[in-house]
């Protein structure tokens, strides 16, 4: 409400944040955390066995961890900030005011993580022989620092959905030490290790050629996996139990699956991964390729599912009980409904709805209150207005808007006057009809193979 609005069109504003976040989490969990833990474990084993081939494998991993985390990893992390600042400025602004010092502490940890990673990589050969122990200690410190960034950020993410008493006290510690933090941290920690194993195991036939070494590596992977899978199951249930009641009921909906499907897919998938852990520990030289590929794909999907669910179950809020997903404060809704949302929007070009500016006012309102999740047309069909209100009349839309938060649990209430509702309805009916009409016309043309509209123009 305080800031200019932006429209990423077909991509969808909400999708953009989501894609950036999922990409970042995949790299952070699989490579920075999981990868580092496995890399240091392998280096440790190589040093114990005096196996230079294994040591060289660990160093190759380090090179790739360095390349990936300092490019895509670090920049998508910054990217989450950038996308939220541009798309949801009120929300990230409020979060920064609440959690500034948590982020600052996380930054200090992040600086040490990068310096340790650089030190670890560039001292690999210098600190060998008698100094190997020192090198390994740097590696362990690196793992701890990568993990600590997860611990801190998870506190903030968990507070968004479960801020505890914060809404009353506005106290940092009330928000940060929320009941969802610990289970969510435990879940992410072991998910990170499982992801690391899943990705590295899928590549092992090309990265570790010598069969004897491969067995050693696979046993290390197997141990970590055998520990991680049960921990993920336990902490996953604990996490679900720690959520606010309404969010709990939204979980299955948010994953887009039915009750049984949700349960079987998640538990079944984890059990299959556990089978892989057992096979890895068993020392089978050749593992079924289908199982490794399945594990890699499933664990990436699992973490994506976790993020999508996390983003969805806190709805209609972005900060639970304080701010709605479109950046409007819960406390402000009544004021805007009485006095008008446009009047309070600094950057809106239209301040009051008239017959002449109705469509323009409606577009402003759409960009202010809907666009953080919805797009007019878009790749994500469930969020696209051309799909959601296809064929709805202006009156139907205007009738639905005041009740949408009662009909749909995840929708925030519309904050604006009757006139503003009418303007929004008029704009949506108009633009959706235009977009769908244009599409229908295009389809009709393609089907009948009739001359293009250019030709028709000329004929006329």
């Amino acid at each position, binding site marked *: 409400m*305080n*800031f*200019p*609005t*932006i429209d*990423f069109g077909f991509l969808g504003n909400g999708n*953009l944040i989501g894609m*950036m976040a999922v990409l970042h989490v995949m790299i952070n969990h699989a490579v920075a955390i999981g990868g580092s833990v496995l890399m240091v474990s392998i280096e440790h084993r190589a040093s114990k066995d005096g196996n230079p081939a294994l040591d060289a494998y660990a160093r190759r991993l380090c090179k790739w961890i*360095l*390349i990936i985390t*300092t*490019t*895509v990893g*670090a*920049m*998508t992390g*910054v*990217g989450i*900030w*950038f*996308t939220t*600042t*541009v798309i949801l*400025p*009120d929300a*990230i*602004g*409020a979060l*920064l*005011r*609440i959690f*500034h*010092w948590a*982020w*600052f502490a996380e*930054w200090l940890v*992040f*600086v040490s993580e*990068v*310096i340790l*990673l*650089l030190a670890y990589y*560039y001292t690999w050969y210098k600190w060998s022989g008698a100094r190997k122990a020192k090198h390994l200690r740097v590696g362990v410190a690196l793992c701890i620092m990568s993990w600590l960034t997860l611990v801190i950020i998870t506190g903030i993410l968990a507070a968004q959905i479960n801020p505890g008493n914060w809404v009353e006290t*506005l106290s*940092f510690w009330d928000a940060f030490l929320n009941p969802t933090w610990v289970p969510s941290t435990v879940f992410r920690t072991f998910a990170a290790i499982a992801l690391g194993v899943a990705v590295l195991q899928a590549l092992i036939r090309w990265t570790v050629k010598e069969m004897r070494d491969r067995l050693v590596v696979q046993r290390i992977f197997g141990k970590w996996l055998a520990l991680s899978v049960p921990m993920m199951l336990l902490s996953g249930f604990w996490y679900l139990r720690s959520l606010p009641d309404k969010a709990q009921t939204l979980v299955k909906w948010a994953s887009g699956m039915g009750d049984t499907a949700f349960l079987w897919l998640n538990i079944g998938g984890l059990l299959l991964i556990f089978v892989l852990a057992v096979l890895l520990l068993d020392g089978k030289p050749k593992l079924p390729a289908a199982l490794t590929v399945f594990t890699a794909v499933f664990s990436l999907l699992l973490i994506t599912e976790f993020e999508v669910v996390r983003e969805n179950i806190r709805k209609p809020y972005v900060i639970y009980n304080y701010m709605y997903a479109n950046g409007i*404060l819960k406390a402000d809704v009544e004021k805007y409904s009485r006095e008008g949302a446009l009047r309070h929007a*600094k*950057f809106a070009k239209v301040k009051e709805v008239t017959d002449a500016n109705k469509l323009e006012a409606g577009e402003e309102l759409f960009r202010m209150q809907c666009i953080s999740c919805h797009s007019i047309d878009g790749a994500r069909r469930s969020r696209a207005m051309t799909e959601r209100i296809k064929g709805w009349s202006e009156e139907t839309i205007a009738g639905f808007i005041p009740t949408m938060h009662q009909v749909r649990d995840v929708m925030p209430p519309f904050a604006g006057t009757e006139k503003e509702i009418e303007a929004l309805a008029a704009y949506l009916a108009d633009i959706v009809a235009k977009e769908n009409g244009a599409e229908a016309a295009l389809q009709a043309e393609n089907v009948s193979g009739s001359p293009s509209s250019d030709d028709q123009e000329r004929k006329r």
Partner: protein
Amino acid sequence: MSMPPYLKVESPVPNDLGLSIPGNLPLFEVLIVVGFILHLIYVNIVVAGSVNAVVFEIRGIVKRDAVSDRLALRLATLVSIHKSIAVVLGIAPLLIISTIYTQFFYPSTILIGKWWLLLIPLLIVSFLLLYAYKYTWDKWQGRRTLHLSVGIAGSLILLFVPLIFIANVASMLQPELWNGSKGFFDSLFRYPTIWQRYFHFMSASFAIIGMYMYGWGKRKIRENDDPAFALAQKYGKGSALLFTLLQLVAGPYLLLSMSGEVRASFLGGSVFHTLLLAVAVALAIALIVLLYRLYKADSKKLFVSSAVVLVLIMGLMSWIRHEVRELYLAPYTEQAPRNLKD
């Protein structure tokens, strides 16, 4: 054509957020000045270092000189390490500017929102290209044009990226120009200080990489008498001298582009601001004298004193930059005050 009075007084700046700034403002200001200059030193090294790597590779090819080529590779390695630190060091100032200048920085960011987000893929591509540049150095000996193009593409992106940052921080200082803004390219010519800032920044980058290359060459040559390090020293001190001299043009040029009130404060209007600038200018002139003597004759003492003076100047510049921001924003924060903890 008189405007109604209520329109005249309405500030273009939004009200601050309902939650207060979590801490003491002067503490934030010290952190942002120190944090920013640390970040900037690394950014200077990365931008100018990647350009110099390419320049020395070309020099190696043209002159058939293996020493230049080795120096280029060493520079490319140096850049890849420093860029990781540059990125993480950028986070603290960004965090603080977002927290204490929300009313200004968020609108200016959203107004160039699409290019602001493009920074992410641009930097990822640039960093990956520069890794490829470094790691394929020996492998692509037979494919020099390809190898060189990878380096050039990576550096060109790095030369472009500062413009996006500058457009944002220049725009946040002049909310009166926001109305009618049409995105990033429009911004480049909408706000009057952008190119002057870019020139000042670039010139600083090549002065600093020069200084860095000299010190680095001097230290490294003791353990490894590669003539590439001697070349780094020779080129470094020349570059430091030349570009510090250029700053005597770039600095005043930037000052002249600033708004009348801000400029006047630094030119006698305010004793504090004038003194701050005068000390910085005096130090810059001292640095030029030191660098000239260093250029004529190598000396560890001269190098150490130049480096100390340079760091002092950088610190002062970051502070002046903060004061410029405060001067620009003062009338706006009066109208729409920040939400401070009482």
